[in-house]
């Protein structure tokens, strides 16, 4: 596959990195409406990212929805920065139809900390938050129905955490352990079972 | 041989041939014709052009494991398919397939029994078939089966009414319930009842499609909703019985339609001199041909229409078909009473119905065109070719 990216490596133009976006009107508006919530703001590739206080996230979401017309919650997810503290970053994407633009809002959360749920503000965040809980183990306080969504109830790991091994873990869950042998194979009681010695 | 012996022979023939016809001819025809309509080939591997497909299906169904769910009501679960198939086969007894034919010295009629309450007998016996379906649905102890069984019970009971009412208007013309007498009467009047009974025929046909659980009324076994409906938990021979019952019911509905409305074994327009040459075709073949045309319509419907929803199906039956059938009875009765002892009233009625039919057909075409134009006008842009 590598040969497909054989385009000659010419001298690279230095690409502008992320710039501070504290002066961006959206960030200013958040600052004005909710003082002391914005931690930092940056802009990269035309995308504005605002980092806010974790406890204020629901209020920020409400402000963005009602005050700045970001009516559509595109996505909620998280990133596990294993070596940082606090460990997780919960990432929200909002879209405004009137501005035709997206804003990314992030907040940091330590392992075991609750993040206020925005499911009451945006209905579409419901399943996204469930998925984030399922995959990262970040609890959303005030979520109406915080159950696992992609893995099963009773699964005892959080697959997208960096310390979760790719090959999976032994969750200890077994279907009918009294009947199906550990390590797979036909049931002990199956009369057609062939034992290869 | 005496007539009695012939009766046994006919019964055996019917019971033996109808399932074979279902398996070999109708199912194959259905699959091949539907395939043709759906730009594919259909079964063409077993035997030349797939003609032995029925045999392969039979072998498959018979050798399949017959599963009874552990929590099923076992006796009823066993009984249900039998109940579905026996009434259907019984009802064949009164169908006149053709006029009596001379075999040796005896005249052998091509019907098992000419009962003077033939039509009533038919309605009564075929309506027993619903027990098979509802019991099968209930006894399987499966919610999908149960829903299918309930749908089926409601549907069959509802559509018996317009079906019976549509036949009443024909009875006014024949003054007999015997199917043989009905054919003879059409012969005598030189008028098939489909013409004065056009409305009745449509009501009968629509109800008939619903009675035999075929598209667009195949709700009891709507496979995309109820998995397979009442027969979800059936396999092997028991499933084959349900299958046979359903197809036999379809044959019976078609046979009755042909007998009552399309002159049974009669050739078309016997009074038109130009069509006299059609008389060389034996009456029995006419009958089979007409039944075949009906079954083709069933297949055609199946590959054309989407499925009705349950409440819509009920609304169609109760709000449209039953009032229409009742009104039709009154109209036909008036036509008969206005010209007592003659058939002129019925002939007029035939012309009126025919005219109405043509007018409605044209109107619906027009309406279709208008809605289409409206829809295209509402599209945001002209679509260039």
């Amino acid at each position: 596959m590598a040969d497909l990216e054989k385009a000659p490596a010419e001298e690279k133009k230095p690409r502008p990195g992320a710039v501070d976006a504290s002066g961006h009107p959206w960030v200013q508006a958040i600052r004005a409406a909710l003082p002391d919530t914005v931690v930092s703001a940056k802009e990269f590739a035309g995308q504005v990212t605002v980092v806010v206080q974790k406890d204020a996230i629901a209020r920020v979401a409400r402000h963005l929805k009602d005050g700045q017309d970001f009516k559509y919650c595109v996505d909620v997810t998280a990133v596990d920065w294993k070596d940082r503290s606090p460990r997780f970053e919960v990432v929200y994407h909002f879209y405004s139809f009137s501005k035709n633009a997206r804003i990314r809002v992030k907040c940091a959360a330590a392992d075991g900390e609750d993040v206020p749920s925005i499911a009451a503000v945006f209905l579409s965040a419901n399943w996204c938050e469930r998925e984030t809980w399922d995959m990262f183990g970040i609890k959303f306080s005030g979520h109406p129905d915080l159950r696992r969504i992609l893995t099963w109830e009773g699964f005892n790991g959080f697959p997208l955490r960096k310390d979760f091994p790719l090959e999976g873990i032994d969750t200890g869950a077994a279907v009918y352990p009294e009947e199906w042998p550990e390590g797979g194979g036909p049931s002990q009681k199956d009369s057609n079972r062939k034992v290869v010695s | 041989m005496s007539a009695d012996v012939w009766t046994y022979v006919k019964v055996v023939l019917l019971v033996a041939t109808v399932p074979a016809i279902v398996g070999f001819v109708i199912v194959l025809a259905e699959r091949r014709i539907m395939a043709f309509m759906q730009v594919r080939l259909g079964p063409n591997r077993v035997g030349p052009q797939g003609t032995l497909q029925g045999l392969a299906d039979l072998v498959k169904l018979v050798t399949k494991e017959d599963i009874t769910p552990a929590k099923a009501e076992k006796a009823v679960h066993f009984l249900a398919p039998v109940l579905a198939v026996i009434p259907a086969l019984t009802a064949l007894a009164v169908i006149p397939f053709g006029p009596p034919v001379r075999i040796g010295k005896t005249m052998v009629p091509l019907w098992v029994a000419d009962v003077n309450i033939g039509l009533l007998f038919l309605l009564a016996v075929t309506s027993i078939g619903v027990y098979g379906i509802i019991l099968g649905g209930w006894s399987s102890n499966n919610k999908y089966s149960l829903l299918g069984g309930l749908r089926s019970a409601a549907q069959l009971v509802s559509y018996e009414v317009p079906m019976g009412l549509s036949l009443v208007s024909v009875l006014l013309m024949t003054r007999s319930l015997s199917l043989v007498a009905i054919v003879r009467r059409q012969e005598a009047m030189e008028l098939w009842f489909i013409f004065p009974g056009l409305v009745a025929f449509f009501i009968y046909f629509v109800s008939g499609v619903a009675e035999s659980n075929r598209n667009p009324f195949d709700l009891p076994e709507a496979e995309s909703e109820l998995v397979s409906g009442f027969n979800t938990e059936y396999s092997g021979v028991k499933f084959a019985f349900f299958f046979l019952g359903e197809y036999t019911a379809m044959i019976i509905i078609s046979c009755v339609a042909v007998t009552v409305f399309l002159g049974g074994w009669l050739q078309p327009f016997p009074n038109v001199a130009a069509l006299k040459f059609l008389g060389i075709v034996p009456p029995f073949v006419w009958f089979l041909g007409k039944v075949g045309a009906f079954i083709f319509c069933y297949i055609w419907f199946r590959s054309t229409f989407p499925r009705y929803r349950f409440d819509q199906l009920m609304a169609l039956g109760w709000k449209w078909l039953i009032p229409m059938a009742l009104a039709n009875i009154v109209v036909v009765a008036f036509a008969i009473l206005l010209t007592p002892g003659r058939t002129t009233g019925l002939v007029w009625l035939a012309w009126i119905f025919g005219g109405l039919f043509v007018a409605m057909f044209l109107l619906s075409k027009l309406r279709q065109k208008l809605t289409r134009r409206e829809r295209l006008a509402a599209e945001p842009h002209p679509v260039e070719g």
Partner: protein
Amino acid sequence: MTDEKISQAEKDEAAYFAERAQAGAAAARSGTAASPEAHTLFDVQEMELNFGPQHPSTHGVLRLVLKVDGEKILEAKPDIGYLHRGTEKLFETETYPMGIPHTDRLDYVAAATNNHAFCLAVEKLLGVEIPRRAQLIRVILDELQRLSSHLVWLGTSGIDLGAVTPFWYAFREREQILDFFEEYCGARLTLNCMRIGGLPFDLTAGWTERVSEFLADLPARIDDYEQLLTDNRIWKKRTVGVGVISAEECVEWGLTGPIIRGSGLAWDLRRAQPYECYEELDFVVPTRQNGDTYDRYIVRVQEMRQSARILRQCLEKLEPGEIRGKVPRVIKPPAEEVYASIESPKGELGFYCVSNGTNKPYRMHVRPPSFINLQALPRLAKGHLVSDLVALIGTIDIVLGEVDR
């Protein structure tokens, strides 16, 4: 279950009934009501119906737990995750180019658009320009894929409502499109047909002519499907007024794609935030006002016509040229994050890519349209009949590979 288990269950049940009979007898003796659970004929008795994961019309392994009163749905609870494969985890363990084949398996009836969204995210991170020819070919592949995805939708949702025949017609055309893909990249379903910075292959000789021929036939073919369905009374009865949702609610639920356009909001990422060369193409974003299943059907059919229109324009604009941009041999984007989204046949398909400066994505998150759209199913289904539920699953147009990832 084993026989032992069944017999145990039967014993339990027998014991339960015996207990109840005793209680009833005792109550009868003491003259009180026989049983608190006694139902009269007209009581509403809720039934729990397990719809799927093995069901002919859940389009995969979707499971819905329905509470029904007769056939009326009181509550529908989707239960997903049967097809979860940890795609997002896999992205993190492999280099950027190695992630592309994984995207094929998300929405497996529209692999090209998935490839595209993935590549777009990484390209945005890298800041690469795509050559014009590559852009046009990407759009062509996208639109062919949109056509084929909509054809699958048309066929299967027709079958859901009992109309079997359109399925075969739709698949006839889809087959041709798959042949085009096969000729282009060797695969029919899991295409892996795009690369970061461009395309893996140039078009084969005669490919554009064959596509043009196909496009010349297509409007008449779409007319055929419409003939069978659009003005069909039964089809209208089954779809008009079923699953009505307003544009405001669509936004609230995050519904995108044909669903939001069926509710009257002409929002299409190809228009709203054009990527590749969509801004210079002339097409209409079809919308309808009522937001019911019928309108979503019309919108999708119109989209097929528009796709054909876009394809024709792209084929005209094709000129020889480069198909790969200037991409370094080893892709090591700066330690940044981007979100890039495209209009997939189902709605907004986005990739959120976080890089830490190495050759593997630190985090790659998919914003799947089917997942978010499916969320609104309980809202759409409430109060409808079980038959309508089937129509609604069809009209949301989910692909479980994308829902469960």
